[in-house]
């Protein structure tokens, strides 16, 4: 049970019921659709740049609590960062949720994202937590406009 409580922490539930940056950005520079074929969850991610800084970011779509909360937390954490910082955050976040940690379990630099650490106990939910991040990465690299978690 404690593992479950760790997964569904207050902050996670709060971001699920009141997702931040849950909006469409009409003049976004990048719009990416993320799709998790496992469950049919879909998100649209909107990113607006100023230089190589993420000036604004928003998302919309349906999904489980983990994917919604993760997307919401992500938008808060990457807004105002530049591409390189966001990429680094992606790597750290990925290490945390997959439990593939080299060295110390120190996620302080992840800020609020740390509340998603409980996902590592539920391998089947990693894709829920990383859907928005994969979409972001693709937006940063501006390759495809459609990503899946597969």
């Amino acid at each position, binding site marked *: *049970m404690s*593992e*479950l*409580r760790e*997964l*569904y922490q207050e902050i996670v*539930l709060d971001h*699920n*019921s009141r997702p931040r940056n849950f909006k469409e950005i009409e003049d976004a520079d990048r719009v990416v659709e993320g799709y998790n074929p*496992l*469950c*049919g*969850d*879909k998100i649209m991610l909107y990113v607006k740049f100023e230089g190589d800084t993420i000036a604004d970011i928003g998302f919309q779509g*349906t*999904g*489980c*609590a*983990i994917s919604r909360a993760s997307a919401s937390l992500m938008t808060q954490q990457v807004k105002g960062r530049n591409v390189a910082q966001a990429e680094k955050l992606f790597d750290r976040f990925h290490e945390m949720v997959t439990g593939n940690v080299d060295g110390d379990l120190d996620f302080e630099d992840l800020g609020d994202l740390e509340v998603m650490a409980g996902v590592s106990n*539920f391998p*089947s*939910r990693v894709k*829920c937590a990383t859907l928005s991040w994969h979409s972001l990465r693709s937006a940063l690299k501006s390759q495809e406009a459609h990503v899946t978690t597969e």
Partner: protein
Amino acid sequence: MTTAKPAESPRPSLTSEAPLDVQRVRRDFPILQQQVRGRPLVYLDNAATSQKPHQVIDTLTRYYTKENSNIHRGVHYLSELATTKYEATRSTVKRFINAGEEREIVFVRGTTEGLNLVAQSFGRQRVGEGDEVIISTMEHHSNIVPWQMLCEERGARLRVIPINDDGELLLDEYEKLLSPRTKLVSVVHVSNSLGTINPIKRIIETAHAQGVPVAIDGAQAAPHLRLDVQDLDCDFYTFSGHKLFGPTGIGVLYGKAEHLEAMPPYQGGGDMIKSVTFEKTTYNDLPYKFEAGTPHIAGVIGLGAAIDYVEGIGLDRIGAHESELLRYGIERLSAIDGLKLIGTAGHKASILSFVLDGVHPHDVGSILDGEGIAIRTGHHCTQPVMERFGIAATARASLAFYNTKEEIDALVEGIHHVSEVMG
């Protein structure tokens, strides 16, 4: 609500009237004895795959320990033994589905392969440009995609029987879809995401009246209903061993001999030939024409043990127990605030698909898993069904004869817990 009572059951039950002794049958399933996440396992994912009784496990162990050999053409003791057991299962299957002849039983990998075989061999022969194939809204992807592939290749058209809000086929619409262009109908006997038991006997009669053959996806029917392919008069019927308490990787395709005779082989190779020269190959007789290569011998023999086991319990007894479980499950789940059952057909098998207000099925699944309760969440390989009901996914508890009312109570308690955790 009437339940898993087979509409087509002309054969009398061989079993006595005594109800199923659940605690006793549970002891046959080693996996059910274990704890998961510190709780007794509550396994409610039987539509995905069923658990195996030790009778099946022991049969597999014995096969690999004492009987393993390649079948057919062997002159030595073990090969004869393995061949005899392999072919004995064919006879078991023939009896199980009341087929007319053993050569109408083809061993395949599972339902998916059975349907692909029908599409690629029978379908290709019959379906041409401008023709139509009829399926239904509630098909598993494995009864959609093979027909889509065929239709695309042939320039034919896929037509789809709609369903109502309870998840029942609209038979009037079906009759309207049938036309001289219809070359084949392929529908599911029991829906894996809704539980609906379709009136396939009537569907088959209607198609036959217009000379159209019918294939049936029996993946979810075989574990619950007494089958009689001669009474149904279906042209093809296919099911998977792993959903019937047998091994994975093995299944059955029944086809009427007249069709199988006329169909080209599905795969070429050893065992499916009589003689091969570079100029000409003569194909083997039925059913070997469709069993190219070394088959899943252990799987076939294990499937035989599974069918023996199920018949030993008796499908009527299984049906009665599951009907009562379903009735109880519907009663308890419907009483939960904010829970909506998806699939409320009047005639259905023990499958309970549901959505919870404000909670995504994935979260329901993880929280129940935390209590050792295994259900499935997602689209269940039936995305058109999800679309029909305007949802992305459901949570699904699917019951087998070894499930108990106490396990349904645990599920209900777990669902209440979901609401607590999710706030």
